[in-house]
Structure formats: C-alpha cells, structure tokens
C-alpha cells in the first residue's frame, strides 16, 4: 500500500518538538547497527567513519543526529555542523525507505534537501539502494 500524502499537523509538530530527539535518534542508530550486524546493510564503514549526519524531519520539527566510527553508528548531540544534512517531510522519508520514490525524484521536486558533503550523501544513498530486502523479513513491505 503506497504511503498516502500527508504532512504532520502543526499540533503534532508542537507536541513532538517538546520531546527530546534522543529516543528517535537512538532507535535509528540501533536499527542501522542491527542491519549492519546482520549484513543486510553492507556498509563500508571506512567511508563513513568520523562523519556526522543530521536527518531533519521537517514536518515533525525533529532533527536526528548521529555519527559513525570504524565499526558502528552512535547517537550524537552536538551543535557542530554535520558532514551531511538530509531534510524532508516524514511521508517522503517513508517513501524513500519503502522504495516508493527515488531520492533524485524528490530532489528534482525540491522535497528532499541535501546539504554538506554531497559525495557522502551519494555513498549513503547508494548504500541504502543496495540493500536487498528480499533477503530479510522486511521484504513484504518493499514494493518493486
């Protein structure tokens, strides 16, 4: 079932903004580490090591920041400029993750913002694209 068009309503945004960003960031980092451990995510950590990432969910008013070392991903809470900053609404991030839309399409229509190290962005994008969900229990969520 395709992700419907939605934008988080402003009351949801106000509510979400009161929450600390750490739990969602922790969930994201934990998921990435699990996927990597099970070799679903074939990350070449030497390309990501020492880099910091910010994923901004615009309609939620939420920015998840995390970093990577040689082995795994970590949550991170600093005010430094991240090496890579991705920004989009929640529905579009979901569409990207579920492979309903490709990032170039979202970029062309200005629904995905990419700032910072563009090559790092490309590495992350291609890493996510290369995940073969057919080999995981999540395959039934993925569209072809």
């Amino acid at each position, binding site marked *: 079932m395709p992700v419907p068009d939605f934008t988080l309503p402003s009351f949801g945004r106000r509510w979400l903004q009161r929450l600390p960003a750490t739990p969602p960031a922790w969930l994201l980092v934990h998921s990435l580490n699990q996927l990597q451990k099970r070799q679903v995510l074939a990350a*070449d950590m030497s*390309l990501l090591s020492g880099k910091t990432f910010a994923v901004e969910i615009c309609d939620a008013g939420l920015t998840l920041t995390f970093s990577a070392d040689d082995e795994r991903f970590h949550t991170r809470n600093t005010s430094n400029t991240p090496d890579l900053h991705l920004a989009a609404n929640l529905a579009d991030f979901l569409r990207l993750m579920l*492979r*309903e*839309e*490709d*990032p*170039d*399409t979202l*970029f*062309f*229509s*200005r629904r995905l*913002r*990419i*700032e910072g*190290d*563009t*090559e790092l*962005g*490309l*590495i*992350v*994008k*291609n*890493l996510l*694209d*290369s*995940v*073969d*969900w*057919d080999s995981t229990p999540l395959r039934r969520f993925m*569209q*072809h």
Partner: protein
Amino acid sequence: MQRLPELICPAGSLPALKAAIDNGADAVYLGLKNDTNARNFAGLNFDHRSASEGIRYARDRKRKVLMAINTYARGGDSLRWRAAIDEAAALGVDAVILADLGLLAYAHERHPSLRLHLSVQGSATNYEAINLAQSLFGVQRAVLPRVLTLDQVRHVIANTSVEIEVFGFGSLCVMVEGRCLLSSYATGESPNSHGVCSPARFVRWEDNGKGMDARLNHILIDRYGASETAGYPTLCKGRFEVEGHTDYVLEQPSSLNVLAMLPQLLDAGVAAIKVEGRQRSPAYVAQVTRALREALDQAGQTGQRFSVKPAWQQALSKVSEGQQVTLGAYDRPWK
C-alpha cells in the same frame, strides 16, 4: 503483432537489477565498481559477487545482462579496462558496451565470441562509422547518440546490418555525447576520462535563505527559487548571464521521453530501446520499466492506433529531471 524492440534498463545495484527484470525489462545493463564505466559513483555498481548473482537472476528468467565498459582507457594505463573486459567474458554477460576503439580491438581479438555493442559514448552518428566498427571489430549493435532526428535514425537503419539501439527515456545530456568537455572544464574530470560527470565531491547545495544555490567546484551554476524544480548539477543545465539575461543557455533540465513516437520507432525497425539512469534508485527503475513495458506491448498490438495512456506519461514525468519531458532531437524541426 509487430516484433518488439528489446527494452534495455539500467541497474546500479542488485535491487535495481531485480526491479528491472521483475517489471519487464528484456535486458539490463550494469557496470563494475571503478572508472571503466560512465557512472563511476561512490557506492554504486557491481563487484564480481553481485554481478554473478544478477546474471543468475536474469538468466533464470530468460533475460539478458549487458556490461558497460564505456569510458576511454588512458594511455599507458589500460590494464583496468582490459581486466574489465576479461571479467565480463568470464562472468558470461550477453554483450559488452564499448566506446574506445582500442578496447573494441582488444575484446574482438581476445574474446572472439563476446558480443560487442558500440556505446553511445562512441559517438557514431552515421552509418559509415557504424559499418566501419562492424567490419573492424564485428560490432553487432550500435547505440545512437541522442542527436539524430527520427528520419536520420531511419536513414542509418536502412544502410547498415548492425542492430540499432536508441534512447527511449532518461536525463538528456547536451548532445555532443562522447565529446563533451564541460565537466572537465569545471572539475578536471569527465565521463570519458573518470566515468563521472560533475563528480559529487565538487558539488555543493546551499540554502541561501530564499532558495538553493548549486555550486560545482565553487562555481555558482544555478540558483533555484524556493518552489522551482531542480536538475542535476551539471554545467550544461546551469543558468548563466548572457547579454543581461540570466537563463538556461545550453540546455534545460529535462528528460527524453519517446512514448509519443513509439509506433514510429517500431516501424523504423530499431532493435532496442534504452532507458538512462544507472545512478537512480530501484524505485525509479521499477516505475520507468513498468510504464515502458506496458507502452511497448500496447504499441506492438495496436500499431498506428496506439495512444499514450495518461498513467504512463504521469509515471515518467514524475521521475524526470526538472519534472519536464521532451522528444529531444527526434523531432527537432531544424537540421
């Protein structure tokens, strides 16, 4: 029913390859993880293991896999390119797509049974060039650069026994394919030399408060308003000031889309229709392949009564660069 041209779709990763096959591609084309192909992007493309798996996936479903080795080997440093050809032969791909004459000669001599396609980067726009490639190297198919009108495509086909492949959908380039120097001018690297146009490490997108600036090696190449659609960060698609006006000077960001002239292409006798976009995600490959598969089948059944379904047009427009489509050179009024 007319014999249909093959639908050739791009694969930058194993999931993209599967998406192409599952949605009706007759063949996919892919490249190795190095500068021997023109989409040498970080994290994209295939190694031996994923290529083997992809070829098995395609073959089990009776589809083909072509390998693009379509950059130019550097003088004194051609080992990587020769190794790529040897690897393609060892993997058992159905054909290699080459541009460099030296590599065509190498493949022809070393692997006489390996099928050779002349890449669009080879820039062969007339039948004499194509027939020469056939007589010298046994080239069996040529991919035409996107510079010819439909009449010129017909003329080429009428004068050669080499199969002709044309582009059907995807981002357009400035149409001096295989000869463009713009990326080299700004960054010192180009598709022909390094396998990448506007290498990502030279690209920066910055929020300027009112919209977004696109810079290539610090050169401001475009400034998008908050709601303006964007394109790839290439010089050819930038906006520049000429005689007091700032606008697209070389080309607008847009994608080629031949849906409207599929019956004419079928009548012309093209052997294959190619989709651009190995750099794109599996979602793009799935959407474009599905639309073109349906459209091709429909065109084969209905001939001149063919009409373009809005759903196909919509699917293709959505994923287009700058969200615009064009028939490109196929129907340009000037010669």
